[in-house]
């Protein structure tokens, strides 16, 4: 580890992280095609996309870090690696403590056929909570999200903003050491955005580590004390 910061004071450490994936078309996912290519000795090499190029980064415990950069620069991929949802092609990602991630679009990971209540419970269980502990939080989630009676309606009937409310509230109702947020509250209305800001502030006041990825400079400026600019898969600027 290149930094002098003791390991116990580090929340996230990335060491020369590379993420490369193959840009596969439908036929690359076809077994019959793959076998016929093998038999005919025909090579169909998919294009390789490099999403992260040797990113090394240390985020101390309690830090509030903003990630900025243009579309396709690798911000979301970086968050996925930090979250442990994506294993780097090479390099090492270390996270100390419990990590929660609000990644992807508004309805990502929600089951449209299930109600908001059922989805909140399932989300919590997938993130490691027991069903009984999560069940105790459901009333609080219903209240904070402001979904009211709609909390017991199927998620397919929700607007994007309502899905954001549900996901944000359910995930942040769980205690964590590190919270990763990827444009997580963009579709919500002003009233909920304000409450979400307060909840994020409460989280890091208790020495939680926050990594926020957003195009909204006001949002990043409001919450974060340091900034990493990402461009073409590398960290190009770091500001405090």
């Amino acid at each position, binding site marked *: 580890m290149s930094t002098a910061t003791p390991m116990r004071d580090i929340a996230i450490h990335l060491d020369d992280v590379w993420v490369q*994936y*193959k840009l*596969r078309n*439908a036929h690359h*996912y*076809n*077994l*019959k095609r*793959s076998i016929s290519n093998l038999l005919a000795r025909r090579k169909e090499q998919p294009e390789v996309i490099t999403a992260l190029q040797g990113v090394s980064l240390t985020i101390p415990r309690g830090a509030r870090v903003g990630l900025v950069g243009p579309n396709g620069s690798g911000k979301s991929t970086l968050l*996925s690696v930090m*979250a*442990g*949802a*994506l*294993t780097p092609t090479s390099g090492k990602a270390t996270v100390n403590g419990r*990590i929660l*991630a609000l*990644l*992807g679009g508004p309805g*990502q*990971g929600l089951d449209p056929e299930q109600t908001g209540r059922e989805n909140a419970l399932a*989300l919590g269980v*997938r*993130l*490691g909570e027991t069903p009984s502990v999560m069940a105790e939080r459901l009333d609080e989630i219903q209240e904070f999200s402001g979904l009211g009676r709609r909390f017991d309606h199927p998620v397919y009937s929700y607007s994007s903003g309502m899905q954001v409310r549900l996901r944000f509230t359910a995930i942040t109702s769980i205690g964590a050491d590190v919270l990763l947020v990827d444009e997580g509250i963009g579709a919500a209305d002003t009233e909920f955005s304000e409450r979400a800001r307060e909840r994020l502030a409460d989280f890091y006041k208790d020495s939680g580590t926050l990594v926020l990825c957003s195009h909204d400079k006001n949002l990043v400026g409001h919450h974060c004390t340091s900034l990493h600019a990402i461009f073409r898969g590398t960290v190009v600027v770091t500001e405090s």
Partner: protein
Amino acid sequence: MTLQMIIFVTGLSLLFGILLQQDMKTFVPYVTLGFVGFHWMIGMINGGASSITGSGAAIKTTPGPLSIYSLRVFANNTIQFLHDAVVVILVLILFQVTPTASLVLVPLALAIIGINGIAVSLWLGPVVARYRDVGQIVGSLTRVLFFFTPIFWTTESLKGQQVAFLMGWNPLAYLLEFFRAPLLGNWPTMAVLIGTAVVTILNVIIAIVHFSHTRDRLAYWL
């Protein structure tokens, strides 16, 4: 679903009982147990095939052990099986099947089918994530397996026929017989015991090797 199972099992028993001139007193419990057990296993195979591709959004955004998606398939199908088990109990009582000491094997049979269900999901889910057309092949195979598995016919009825050799290669036949025989008051044959052990050991080994090898690549394939 329980009502659907009653209708299907009744129809199947009546049709093939009459066609094959079977004694209904023994044939109906045989078909019922066969179909309920088969339905459970096929549900886990089909569910296992889509366990990764069907959870793409969750896998890409929610950190956590990926084996949870196989366990979910197992849980969903086992809950379904427990509903169907009501039909089994009713049939066993109605047709006065006398319980014997062989019943002690039933919990073991259920556990072995459960382990096989989780294992098949652990290796088949990643295979389908990598090669999507395998999902369609599995769907076709499972439909054919219904006829190639002793549900409404017995293995004894195939003795001396060439097709009997083919039946020896059907892993579901061993598991199904290991589950069904004790409930009908019979002990499984040595061939069934060996077949069940071989299928389970191979399935678990393939699951451990393939899942640990592909686990880190799954998010890239979705």
